[in-house]
């Protein structure tokens, strides 16, 4: 192992939190490297020097002050129990709005569908007798008498100079 790699593991080695594998690797390196051995010793010294700083305990009024601050927290009003969180309340409101929209939307769609059906019925009624109307139209325009050849007033066929017969 290189000194650089070992140095990063020295803290865990000194504080005793290195696992046995890491510890044996560092041990092996320290046995061969005087510089790292010195540094490990210095870290160990710093570790013990840091113990010289006394801790400052909380004051006697600490607990009372915490309870006082908790008691001073604004109480929730009765209706807020039904609205545990503003975000939840907003979500519920949005969900309700969406539900109303979904319920309403098919109804308006249904209305337009009804209108379309009525229009279809109208169209159907209009074309229901279309065959009859068509026949009526044909019949009213059909002049059977005009189709019959007039027996007494038959005109002679014109003959062209080439012997071809033409009808006017």
């Amino acid at each position, binding site marked *: 192992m290189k000194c650089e790699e070992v140095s990063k593991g020295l803290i865990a080695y000194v*504080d005793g939190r290195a696992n046995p594998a890491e510890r044996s690797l560092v041990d092996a390196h320290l046995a061969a490297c005087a510089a790292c051995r010195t540094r490990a010793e210095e870290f160990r010294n710093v570790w013990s*020097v*840091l113990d010289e700083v006394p801790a400052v305990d*909380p004051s006697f009024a600490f607990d009372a002050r915490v309870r006082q601050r908790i008691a001073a*927290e604004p109480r929730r009003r009765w209706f807020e129990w039904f609205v545990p969180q503003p975000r939840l309340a907003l979500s519920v409101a949005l969900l309700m709005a969406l539900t109303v929209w979904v319920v309403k939307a098919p109804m308006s769609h249904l209305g337009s569908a009804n209108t379309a059906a009525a229009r279809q019925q109208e169209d159907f009624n209009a074309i229901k007798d279309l065959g009859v109307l068509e026949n009526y139209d044909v019949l009213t325009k059909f002049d059977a008498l005009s189709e019959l050849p007039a027996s007494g007033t038959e005109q002679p066929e014109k003959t062209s100079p080439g012997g071809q017969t033409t009808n006017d």
Partner: protein
Amino acid sequence: MTRSDVQLMLDVKAGDDASFDFLLQKYRSPLVHFLNRMVRDTATAEDLAQEVFLRVYRARKQYTPSAKFTTWLFRIATNLALNSVRDTRYQKLEVPIDAPTDSEDAAPRELPAREMRIDEFMVERDRAEIIRRAINSLPEKQRAAVLLHKYEEMDYFEIAGILDCSEGALKSLLFRAYETLRVQLAPLVTQPVERRAREGRPS
């Protein structure tokens, strides 16, 4: 049967205020110790520690045991302390708003003491004060890491959870912090040896 911290917190969530009192008594001292070392002001440390408990109490209904209780507790405390340190710094010093933000490696600007050599402080003959100043001269995140590691005796996994970094990053952070302390506190480390030598006592 001893209830775990998580169980106690779940009981608090269910409305048991006695469990909250139990947690308060259990963790008030570690929190005040930690915060006092972070902010170096007893009144501020107490106020912040109370704020931590207040936040825990406020959040009781939403509590889910996703991590160790202490990780959650000290994460709140660390964030409050870091904010307080930054706020205090900006109150005390006129720092340009566009000055580079302090990363964990950046030199802390709030401490005039950092510019002095440790041997200049030796005249004070107050070893504890010198050690406090040395800790305080560390960048904030390194300071929090050292305090949680050395004084709260937390494992790497938990400290990494509190500081929101990987264990590898935490080890690097701790190494840099202890390296700084090793250099700064060297006179304190050798002093007892020299004194013993002067006094003719075996080391």
